[in-house]
């Protein structure tokens, strides 16, 4: 079998990943070189209803990848012999399958490089089962949106003078300074940007923010919105998020993909 053979189902698996019936458990390709950790991670995922295909090395990963449909790749970037970053690049060249990086380095440079190369999220060792499942679930759920944004040549959007970089998951001010957001705040903002000038129900926003349990505190969606507002507001004008009484919130600004 040659790597990259287009007849082997790569296209099939990933141009229509969400055509798979919801009842079918998603398949996760787990690439981890440490055998006990591989077993433990696989077990944790299986217990949460996922089908896991483990791989220890890059060649094993490719073999599994081509053997059948994969909904998500969980990739340890510190594999012996191959750089996880190169591997991520190679996967991206053929497929848009969601990728979650696992790294023991925990360095921000790694995180940013990984996300820029097209990984969807990042998980730092050590992680708990709850965190692992939350990230997997969030990325799978986000998959649809991510698919959409990958169809667009750029990963950036502009609204109200602010710039959003979806790959790096960062927000920049009018003067180009980074405005730090928490993961939950970024997800909330991304939801607004996905539906500009449309009212989004509170329940839907709660659901969206719950998808990401990395922030485990149970603060209310209203607190989250008010914090995001404070960060988006400029000295001379309020943030473009409007409260629609009894319904939810609305982003009152045009969004331009750049």
């Amino acid at each position, binding site marked *: 079998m040659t790597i990259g053979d287009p007849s082997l189902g790569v296209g099939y698996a990933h141009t229509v990943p969400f055509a798979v019936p919801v009842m079918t458990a998603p398949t996760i390709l787990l690439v981890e070189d*440490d055998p*006990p*950790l591989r077993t*433990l*991670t696989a*077990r*944790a995922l299986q217990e949460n209803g996922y089908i896991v295909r483990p791989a220890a090395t890059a060649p094993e990963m490719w073999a599994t990848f081509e053997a059948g449909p994969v909904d998500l790749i969980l990739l340890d970037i*510190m594999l012996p012999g191959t750089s996880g970053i190169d591997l991520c690049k190679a996967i991206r060249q053929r497929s848009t399958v969601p990728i979650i990086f696992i790294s*023991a*380095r*925990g*360095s*921000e*440079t790694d995180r940013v490089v990984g996300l820029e190369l097209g990984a969807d999220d990042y998980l*730092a*060792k*050590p*992680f*708990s*089962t*709850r965190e692992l499942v939350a990230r997997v679930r969030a990325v799978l759920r986000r998959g649809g949106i991510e698919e959409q944004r990958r169809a667009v040549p750029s990963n950036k959007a502009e609204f109200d003078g602010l710039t959003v970089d979806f790959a790096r998951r960062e927000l920049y*001010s009018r*003067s*180009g*300074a*980074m*405005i*730090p*957001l*928490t993961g939950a705040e970024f997800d909330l903002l991304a939801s607004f940007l996905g539906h500009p000038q449309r009212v989004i129900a509170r329940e839907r926003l709660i659901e969206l923010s719950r998808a990401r349990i990395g922030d485990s*505190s149970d*603060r209310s969606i209203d607190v989250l919105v008010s*914090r995001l507002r*404070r*960060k988006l*507001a*400029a*000295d001379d004008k309020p943030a473009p998020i409007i409260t629609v009484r009894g319904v939810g919130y609305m982003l009152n600004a045009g969004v331009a993909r750049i």
Partner: protein
Amino acid sequence: MLTRPSLGLLGRIVAIILLTVTIEFAASTLLYERAGEFSIKEDEARRLAEHLVIVQRLVGERPPTERPAIARYLSTDRYTVHWQRTAPEPRALAAELRNMRDQVVEWEPSLANAGLQLQLASPGRHDIVMGEIVLADGTWIHFKMHGLVTGWGLQLNRIVLALVPAIALAVVGGLLVRLTLRPLKTLSQAIESMGKGERVIVHEEGPNEVRNLIRAFNRMQDQISRMIADRTQALAAVGHDLRTPLARLQLRLDGSSDAELRQTSERDIGEMEEMISSVLAYLSGDSDPEAAARVDLAVLITTLVDDMADHGHHVSYHGPDHLEAQVRPHGFRRAINNLIENAIHYGDDVRVTLSDWPGRIVLRVEDNGPGIPTHAMADVLQPFARLDSARSRNTKGLGLGLAIVSQMVEREGGGFTLVNRQEGGLRAEIVLPKTTPDQQ
């Protein structure tokens, strides 16, 4: 202990040159003086000789009656001449004038036959010399000479003249020595900047000994930086590698049904992870430098404060909603986080204040805890320092928190100070110089 003030190598060498030149000068002056006790300048001797010969001839040609007049006529301010018939009392030639007589006779040998005598006007006065010569008819000419540059006058002159080359020699010698020692100065500067963590390869130049020293220094520098890099890398690798077994432990615990074990062990894992990441953060300055970027500091701080508040701590923020600065975002975030965590650890009411001052940004984290004993103030900034010297387990982490803050702030060109507040508690203050986006 008192240290003797040092002249420095250059000073020492110049002093040595000066000393040798002075000794040489003194010795030669003394020897010269002994050899020519009372010699006069060569041209002075010639003038005297010529004058005497002319006087001898002119006075001798005249008849005796005209002789006093012509003698007066031939007198000048410096040379007075008298004619007399009688011979002077023969006197022994003063020892110190022997040399002068020799000089005169050497120029005009005829004067030797004219019975040239020389005396000092008075013993010890060297500027007036008298003498007689005899004429062909046996009468005598008595002469007196004033203002001879002899004796001390001559010596002073000679001292000044001899000093000029001596001083010039000393200056040239000093400059040459300075030039020779310049590589040493470069070397000491390089060592200084090496102490600050920079790596400077010094060009090998100068005398052999200095070249060897520079070569040894360069080699040592390479070895040290390689050693540090190796250790940093090893420590970082251990840090990374520890996270894999920690991850296993965590996942295994998640499968356990013992809730209490799970909870306590999870806390331990959290603590271990915190230690690893603080060591990695402390090392990150060397192994993984981050680039500076423009960041909204106010938002960065409120994000941290919100997070602390969500975890039930009493932390408040006072300052503008937005304030941009040029910092290394993650390193600086960690620094502020360390300060807030530290404040929460010792106090239960924490105020974070951000102020926009002309030319600088001031960030304060204040708590109502016990503060830091004055004698321990300097120590707490040292890595692995902890206030409780017993290393009791009630403090979290490795004692790198404030050392990391100090390191991160230094990297931004700012200042970090700790003060005990008058009203109690500690104030940690970071002052950042303000830079505009185009300045970096």
